[in-house]
């Protein structure tokens, strides 16, 4: 039933017709109406990187303030706002969405699908994330940016101690971003389980996609806890419910439990897709299939489970009984094992490979060396009694920057260099890429390694200034210099992106000779992803199936593409069961998100009329949206019905 289509890169014969069926309307309607997972993915990436730059500038300003003792660059108010928004932005508005962005673009492609399972929900997920992010920043416009820390511990963040509106916007923003992540997680899960290309049995699913499966399940169980924490905090603030007020029967520690019940799984929610990127990129540059596929997938799943049993290690100093804490300490040690297994799978892959040091591989190497250190200090802070010294000191600041910056941001940069040719059809400069890597890598270590020592010297976190004579001066200065170096390295990559726009170098369909399906179509990816549905017979289709096989015309081939259809596959073996029609562009997701945002913002600023309007907009949009679900006729535009 399969036939060989021309090698990817050559346009299919009926490209004009395909274009007509799939291309978004030009201009504003298309901008607000698109449901194309690639456009949404890139949008996530651009938005997340905008937040990354802002938050990075915050960090640099803080490092200027801390470069010398008793500095007066920032007032205490400003410093507290900056570190609160630095943490909030990096976790909620950069790391999570940037991974969601890559996932959005790549998961359907790696599965051989033409879109996500729920394209409109996908668009909604982006809009609600954007509005949630803007809401968190709205505090700056109102003069009361959030300043209670990204963790927002009650009762400091309760109305008595943080009377401004900043924390309200923060809490609602958290809820919105939580909705976005949850919706995205459902989409990743259903897409993976129902939209795999025929023949892609579960044992052939790329590890990168597996990381999003675990990501999806973890999000579903973890995010409700932080939504609850932020929601109850908001109830306390607005309606005096006293959930976290001990004087009135509440419990201040409850907030910490809820927050970290999400907070620690969240660390792995961020780390797993990053590790998935490494498992994708590293074998391509080692010229060898990944060693221990089953081990790695098992490790991802194991991390997903164990990560729900470690949250109290953020609370070792809160006076929880030692026996109870010992359990969490032990679980925090056990979770090292699956990470260790992955580590040695990567080493084994390279051992019998032939490593090519292109920029993505350099960043992957950087990841290995930084994550190794962050993992080791992670074992140290998991040791219950020693954490009594380390917690809330700069040692912990060093540790989690090695993990969240080293082990997540470095893979993200590897991914930028690796998939940029896919996204744009253009190559990035290797020379600038190497320069960027080395400046970032050295800058990173100069910035964050001294923080270990500062922690050992007793410097607590989140202080806006310190006095001289405590042994902290020169280490802080070095760290600040490293911070600027790191930022320079990031800047070189931005220059690289700009240069490749000015002087494009054609990438071709598969510049790295990679093994996964996203490279089985042209670069940049056409709107319809695959003119013909790929038929998968291997875990590494583009390496084992040379040339790649595609479904014959008629099954799910060009007609499928012309009808905006995807085969729905099921079971372990991905047998075709039914057909999923990709809905046409619609701005309804945008209106629902906007309506919801209006409701909450209007309630916070006491503008009841606006709230009612927002509610009406959201309600009408939801009704109209649900009215059309399952209506197959709208899947293909009437005027283009074949």
């Amino acid at each position, binding site marked *: 039933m399969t036939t060989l289509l021309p090698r990817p890169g050559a346009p299919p014969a009926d490209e004009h017709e395909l274009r007509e069926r799939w291309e978004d309307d030009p201009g504003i309607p298309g901008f607000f109406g698109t449901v194309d997972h690639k456009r949404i993915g890139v949008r996530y990436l651009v938005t997340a990187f905008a937040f990354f730059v802002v938050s990075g500038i915050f960090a640099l300003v803080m490092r200027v303030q801390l470069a010398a003792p008793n500095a007066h660059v920032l007032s205490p108010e400003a410093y507290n706002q900056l570190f609160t928004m630095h943490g909030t932005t990096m976790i909620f508005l950069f790391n999570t969405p940037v991974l969601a962005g890559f996932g959005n673009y790549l998961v359907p492609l790696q599965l051989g699908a033409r879109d996500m399972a729920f394209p409109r929900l996908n668009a909604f997920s982006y809009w609600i994330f954007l509005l949630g992010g803007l809401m968190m920043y709205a505090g700056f416009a109102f003069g009361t940016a959030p300043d209670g820390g990204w963790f927002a511990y009650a009762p400091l963040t309760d109305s008595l101690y943080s009377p401004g509106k900043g924390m309200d916007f923060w809490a609602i923003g958290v809820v919105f971003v939580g909705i976005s992540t949850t919706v995205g997680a459902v989409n990743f899960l259903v897409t993976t389980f129902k939209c795999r290309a025929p023949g892609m049995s579960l044992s052939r699913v790329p590890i990168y996609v597996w990381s999003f499966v675990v990501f999806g399940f973890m999000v579903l169980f973890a995010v409700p806890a932080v939504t609850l924490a932020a929601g109850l905090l908001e109830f306390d603030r607005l309606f005096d419910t006293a959930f976290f007020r001990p004087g009135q029967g509440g419990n201040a520690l409850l907030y910490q439990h809820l927050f970290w019940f999400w907070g620690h799984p969240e660390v792995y929610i961020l780390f797993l897709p990053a590790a998935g990127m490494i498992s994708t990129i590293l074998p391509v540059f080692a010229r060898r*299939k990944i060693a221990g596929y089953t081990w790695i997938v098992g490790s991802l799943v194991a991390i997903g489970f164990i990560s729900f049993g470690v949250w109290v290690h953020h609370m070792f100093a809160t006076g929880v009984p030692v026996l109870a804490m010992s359990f969490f300490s032990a679980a925090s040690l056990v979770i090292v094992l699956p990470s260790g297994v992955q580590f040695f799978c990567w080493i084994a892959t390279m*051992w019998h490979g032939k490593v090519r040091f292109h920029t993505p591989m350099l960043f992957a190497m950087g990841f290995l060396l930084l994550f190794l250190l962050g993992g080791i200090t992670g074992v140290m802070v998991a040791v219950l009694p020693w954490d009594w010294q380390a917690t809330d000191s700069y040692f912990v600041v060093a540790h989690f920057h090695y993990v969240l910056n080293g082990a997540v941001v470095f893979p993200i940069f590897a991914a930028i260099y690796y998939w940029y040719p896919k996204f744009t059809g253009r190559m990035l400069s290797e020379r600038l890429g190497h320069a960027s890597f080395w400046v970032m890598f050295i800058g990173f270590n100069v910035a964050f390694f001294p923080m270990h020592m500062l922690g050992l010297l007793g410097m607590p976190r989140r202080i806006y200034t310190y006095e001289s004579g405590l042994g902290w001066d020169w280490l802080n200065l070095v760290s600040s210099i490293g911070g600027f170096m790191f930022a320079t390295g990031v800047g070189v990559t931005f220059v690289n992106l700009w240069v490749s726009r000015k002087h494009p170098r054609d990438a071709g369909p598969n510049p790295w000779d990679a093994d996964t399906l996203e490279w089985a179509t042209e670069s940049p990816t056409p709107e319809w992803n695959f003119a013909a549905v790929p038929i998968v017979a291997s875990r590494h289709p583009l390496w084992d199936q040379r040339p790649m096989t595609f479904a014959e015309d008629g099954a799910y081939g060009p007609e499928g593409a012309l009808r905006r259809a995807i085969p729905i596959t099921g079971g372990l073996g991905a047998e075709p069961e039914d057909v999923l029609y990709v809905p046409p562009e619609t701005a309804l997701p945008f209106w629902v998100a906007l309506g919801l945002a209006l409701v909450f913002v209007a309630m916070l600023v006491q503008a009841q009329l606006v709230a009612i309007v927002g509610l009406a907009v959201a309600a009408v949009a939801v009704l109209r949206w649900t009215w059309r679900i399952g209506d197959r006729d709208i899947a293909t535009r009437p005027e283009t019905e074949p």
Partner: protein
Amino acid sequence: MRFAVDTPPSILDAHGSEAHHLANVWWIMLGIAAFVYLVVGGFIVLASVRGRRREPAEGPSRHDQYFIWIGGVIVPTVILMFVAFLTVHTGAALRAPGKNPLRVHVVGKEWWWAVEYPGTSVVTANEIHVPVGQPLEIQVDAGDVVHSFWVPQLAGKLDAIPGQHNILRFTVRQVGVYRGECAEFCGLQHAHMNFRVIAETPGDFTKWLLHEQQITPVPSSELAARGQLAFNSSACAGCHAIRATDARSNVGPDLSDVGARARLGAETVDNTPDNLRRWIADPSHFKPGVRMPPAVNSPDDLDAIVAYLEGLR
């Protein structure tokens, strides 16, 4: 008077029982960590360069399984079991009740520490006198938001959490003045919520405790006497207490021995007459956002109050 603490607050320069144990744990862990980093890091670098001149292996190699089993499973399990043993062994030895302990009650507030000695009338602020050699039980409470009590050279942290009474137990081993800090973010002036632990010989400590119980603020000069009047009749007495006088409020720090304290504003500035004067005139100058308002306007009153407070020791 010595303003500075004796040594920087390094957790590796341990002078308390708990900090001593934990410093040992650190050196053991550092040894293991350095070994693991060099070995695994070495493998990473070696693995990445050794294949440059040969062709990559087709299909899986049996070395893959060796790497995964030995490097990923067996060796880490052994190391982690040792670390777990270290955890349990050390954890059980620490913070257990000792014999004949001295109880000190500490309350963290935005942004200073109230210190009381239960069973006595002694109340002070931001300076904790303790005897060396005697087990201590520091009860750490929160007066408003979450704080964390940390004296790096003596013991690990213990949070002050509203609605909870946490108890930190350790013994100081050496006479000295140690820097303490608030380690949990608690708002605007979290950076200036420090304190000191003054560890003395048991004899000196008993002397200090007796002296504190006998404080009777008799102004030593006419100026100081005027200062006492001004203090009690102005906003000062609305927040501060001075034992055996009409000033009895506990909103701000107790000032009964303020003249003997090394620093002001929870270790913000040295306690010199000049700084004290400027502090009273405008506390926000040193500590922006501090809860204490500028409450004394007339320079005459300021001089008098400074003279009065300097004499309280």
